[in-house]
């Protein structure tokens, strides 16, 4: 067995933090993605422009840069705002909040494209049928459109989540104590870089496998209505 010099529990805590950041960023990203997709599909010019700029810019610059920009840039802006209120404190976002915002922004930009494709994939006749049955716009959206969008978008969103899970390692650069940072700390104490980075790799692989399995189950559930009939 590999000797972790008592850092095992630290690494486990780091892994838990990694999952927390990923889930937080995923929640934020889903909201951003849905909103952005709605803006893109609204057909209102300024909204379409804003949505397009957001997705193009975020998808064109490195995730690491987004993390750095949110973490260090927000500190400047927040301190500036604090100054205008007569305070001379240095204000900054906690690494956790900054990390969730940065990764959520990235996730949202990619998710909006997935959602947009899914919305366009639901035949228009279904919405018309729902309206003809007397459902209100909101009701039809909630009962007819959203469940189908979810089913179509799920594989794409699942892939994005796996990417997000790996991107959480970037937050370590901003000092967030997730798995990657905990590993680096352990390395600086034990001087065994290979052992610990290899353990971290295996832990990330484990998380990927678990998430892949969970996504598979979710996809099966979402596709219940599409299960091939079992005829005797």
């Amino acid at each position, binding site marked *: 067995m590999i000797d972790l010099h008592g850092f095992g529990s630290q690494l486990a805590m780091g892994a838990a933090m990694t999952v927390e950041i990923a889930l937080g960023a995923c929640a934020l990203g889903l909201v951003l993605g849905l909103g952005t997709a709605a803006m893109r599909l609204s057909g209102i010019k300024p909204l379409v422009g804003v949505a397009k700029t957001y997705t*193009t*810019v975020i*998808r*064109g*610059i*490195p*995730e*690491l*840069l987004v993390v*750095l*920009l949110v973490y*260090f*840039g927000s*500190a*400047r*802006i927040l301190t500036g705002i604090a100054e205008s209120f007569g305070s001379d404190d240095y204000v900054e976002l906690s690494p956790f909040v900054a990390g969730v915002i940065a990764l959520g922004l990235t996730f949202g930009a990619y998710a909006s494209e997935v959602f947009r494709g899914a919305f366009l994939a639901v035949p228009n006749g279904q919405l018309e049928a729902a309206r003809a049955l007397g459902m209100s716009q909101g009701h039809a959206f909630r009962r007819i459109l959203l469940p189908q969008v979810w089913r179509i978008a799920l594989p794409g969103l699942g892939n994005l989540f796996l990417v997000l899970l*790996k*991107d*959480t*390692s*970037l937050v*370590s*650069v901003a000092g967030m104590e997730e798995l*990657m940072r905990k*590993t*680096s700390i352990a*390395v600086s104490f034990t*001087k*065994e*870089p*290979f*052992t610990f*980075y*290899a353990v*971290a*790799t295996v832990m*990330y*692989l484990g998380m*990927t*496998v678990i998430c892949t399995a969970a996504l598979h189950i979710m996809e099966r559930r979402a596709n219940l209505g599409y299960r091939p009939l079992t005829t005797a």
Partner: protein
Amino acid sequence: MDDIIERLPEMLIGAVTTIELTLLALAFGICLAVPAALARTSRLWWVRAVPYAYIFVFRGSPLLVQMFLLYYGLSQFEWIRSSMLWPILREPYWCAVIAFALNTGAYTAEILRGGIQSIPKGEIEAAKACGMSPALMTRRIVLPRAFRIAWPAYGNEVIFMLKGSALASTITLLDITGMARSIIAENYLSLEFFGLAGVLYLLISWAFMRILKIVEIHLSAHLAPPPLASATPE
């Protein structure tokens, strides 16, 4: 503004490093991806297993960990430090290139496998019927067709590699991100210089996408609509 103009040359040097790292990684990555993808489509399970393990590990863990494992990790072993390869593995530049190449190679192999598997069966049968040996068929039919089919997906991978190259800044390399970080450490203008870095990345990815599109048009020249008779010059 003056600060930005004054520091622009340094940022452009960073941009050259970023492009260099990306292109080197992509080139080495393709060299890894082609045999991996071919082995991945083999009929023998033990031939498929090796690239499967490689692809699983490099796609399932973060690039940052892979790079640290290579850059910091290898120094743990005395026999590596005394080996002939140490002058290369000691350099952050080559560690970054190797880590990026291994990573993008795994993703590219999967993309290429998709391409190989979606070649219409008839084309393979036709090649066999013409009496091509497996090697000749791979070289003349399978790989060119797979590259053509996989090109759009590969384009995405190129952009991901460009963005991934920013991680080189965490092992002291002065690419765009690294240069921006070192400048910000002097003057604290975080928004300005990270913003400038973002603009540079956008410009480079735009240029890359243009080149990829031109190659794509070139690759599918046979699918282009024939020139209209009325469009011919008088």
